[in-house]
């Protein structure tokens, strides 16, 4: 399997510039999107479709800090698996649990502002964890344990953010 970094032709780094990544995705889409092959033979259209799918999948993977970290770990031969699981720090688990309780209270009370503040808080914490992730990936050697911990942290925060989003949908 070709790595998403190879597919997009970008360096194997966590600290990718989002604007540049998007530009690369746009350029490749212009070359491969099925609309560019509208009048071509069907086998060519199928080929373009499958290449465009690969490019979009790679873009989706690298744009998101969680799957980007997972892709980097896979490159290091440390892919996330049943035996190599992200372990968020216990203190964070406690905090997320508290936030969740607050969220379900706010949800029942119809307190939109509170739900929004929980979502914003989770967002801020996730951004901060992503920054620490970037730092960890720039160390030599890469502290795999720490990366896995941060990955766990990001996943929990993501879920909290999603739950807050779902609550906002209902309010």
């Amino acid at each position, binding site marked *: 399997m070709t790595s998403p970094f190879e597919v997009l*032709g*970008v*360096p*194997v*780094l*966590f*600290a*990718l*510039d989002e604007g*540049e*990544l*998007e*530009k*690369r995705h*746009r*350029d*490749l*889409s*212009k*070359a*491969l*999107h*099925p*609309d*560019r092959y*509208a*009048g*071509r*033979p*069907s*086998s*060519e259209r199928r*080929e*373009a*479709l*499958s*290449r*465009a*799918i690969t490019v*979009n*999948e790679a*873009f*989706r993977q690298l744009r998101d800090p969680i799957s980007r970290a997972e892709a*980097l770990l896979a*490159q*290091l*031969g440390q892919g996330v698996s049943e035996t190599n699981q992200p372990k968020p720090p216990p203190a964070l688990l406690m905090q997320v649990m508290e936030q969740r309780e607050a969220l379900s209270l706010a949800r029942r009370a119809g307190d939109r502002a509170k739900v929004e503040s929980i979502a914003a808080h989770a967002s801020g914490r996730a951004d901060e964890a992503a920054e620490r992730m*970037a730092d960890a*990936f*720039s*160390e*030599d*050697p*890469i502290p795999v344990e720490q990366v896995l911990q941060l990955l766990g942290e990001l996943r929990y925060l993501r879920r909290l953010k999603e739950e807050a*989003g779902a609550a*906002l*949908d209902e309010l």
Partner: protein
Amino acid sequence: MLLDIFDPKAAPRAIVIDLGTTNSIVAYVRDGSPAALVTCDGAALLPSVVHYADNGATLVGRAAKAQLTRDPARTIASVKRFMGRDAKDPETKRLGAQKFATPRSDEEARSVRFDVGRSVPITPVEVSAEILKSLKQSAVDQLRGVGGAVITVPAYFDDAQRQATKDAGRLAGLEVLRLLNEPTAAALAYGLEQKQNGVFAVYDLGGGTFDITILRLEDGVFQVKASGGDSALGGDDMDRAIAEGLLEQMGAVDPRPPEVVALALSAARELKHALTDATEASIELPAKGGASIQAKLTRPQLDALIQPLLERTGKACRRALRDAGIEAKALDGVILVGGSTKVPRVQSYVAELFGRAPRCELDPELVVAYGAALQADLLTRDDSEVLLLDVLPLSLGIETMGGGVDKILPRNTTIPTGARATFTTYADNQTGFELHVVQGERELAADCRSLARFSLRGIPPMPAGMARLEVELSVDENSLLKVSARETTTGISQEIAVQPSYGLTDDDVERMLIEALDFGEEDLERRRLVETRVEGERLVLATNKGLATDADLLDAAERAAVEQALAALKGAIASATSASPVQAAIDGLDQATHDWAGRRMNRAVAQAIAGKNVVDIEKSVENATGVDVHVARHRGETA
């Protein structure tokens, strides 16, 4: 009047059809600018109403609309609201004058069916096909030939609704080149005119559907960031809210005769339209006991009636903004699309919601068709710098044990896209898998839209968890889903019959096509020949273009093979009396150009990223060490 000079050798033109809930439009590009064709009603807008007359005739447009209050059971309006919906859909319970047929089997229950007094009930796909046929005929009359069609759909249409639209196109004898999202088409019409980069919101409230799309325009690429909406929310619901009040005033009690409901709905529409300019409107209506009443509606009353509907759009807008990760104040503009945005309260609501006055310079009823016409034109060009990148509107997932959903592709994923997921057996010696593909955001599979069920059988007995089923979902540029699956442990790769949960099967459509032809409309073989010829001509054109730019990627023998296959295809197009020799020549050329096509694609990719060193993408992190180095070291250590 300026007439196009007819060139018999010119390839037939692609048309676009905006198949709307209330009105439909057929358009094309003439000399680089979009133009709407005159429909059978003599105007650009064709009312999307079909009447099934006593004498077996089918009327479309204004003539059909005139029958809405006279013969409501045989007259179908707003059929778009029923596309891809089953017989139990909530839409069938809402205020309306149609007569639904009771399904006689589970198979029949997969689609809504209208009882219009014919021997067989009619499906929404067939009703839509009548509208499409009428528009196609207008195009054929005026353009002399139609080379395929782009049909627009609400961005929030799910797979079943899209598939139903495509089936309607097929049934109408159209080659559906593309299903294009309406808000994206509208953005294209605006964007190309303004040539302005930025992030925009398109608020599209039509007769029956609502879409909100947040998209970014940069480098000629219209990239959708998020889309949301409700495919059962529009002007029809405003009419219903008004009509409920009118029915009360008329003293109509349940069961209300369909004629009375149709009259109230039609009066409601009239009042709503009058209140676009006036602040007060009234209409005379019959009441109980032969009396008549003067029903009055003021602008503030209308505003209050539609407020709950507007709040539903507001919710979808806020979610889309959140999904796109952008705040309303950071937008560069808000565009209004759809006939219902003519209602003054809708405009002021959007202004409040986004904190700015929305733009509506282009006619909100025509802008989708115009944008789509531009896109259809772009499809025929190789050198275009403009590209539309759309997203999957609703998450796709697979039902898990216990009725949950494993979301395989989340909403707002850029399309085309695909994903694989692996499932395993949960019981010892399990020899089959049942899989259920669903679409939607809800946590329980039962609350999502069921798209397809399929099963894989014949797996050799193994302990639980040993057999692995790899399921691949792929979504094309039209947001249409394909599912394939194989068992990987034993290498059994089985073709899986996907049973669609909604709508018509391929066989249904094929049968309807043949039945339609029995009425003597067109000869099937002749139609196939015409279609295959058009495809062949397109291929000749594309291959010639390819030879002009990329002949250097062929060696002498390959080049000779391509030239030979090309000549064979030209010969077949000129002399064939049936589709099969043309199809054989197309396949021959396809084969001869296969490897070359791959090389051309590689070249296109290389050109796309040429001159852009990968280092450009590296964020300037001081002393950053790439993982590359570590990977190299890691390999070195283990070597």
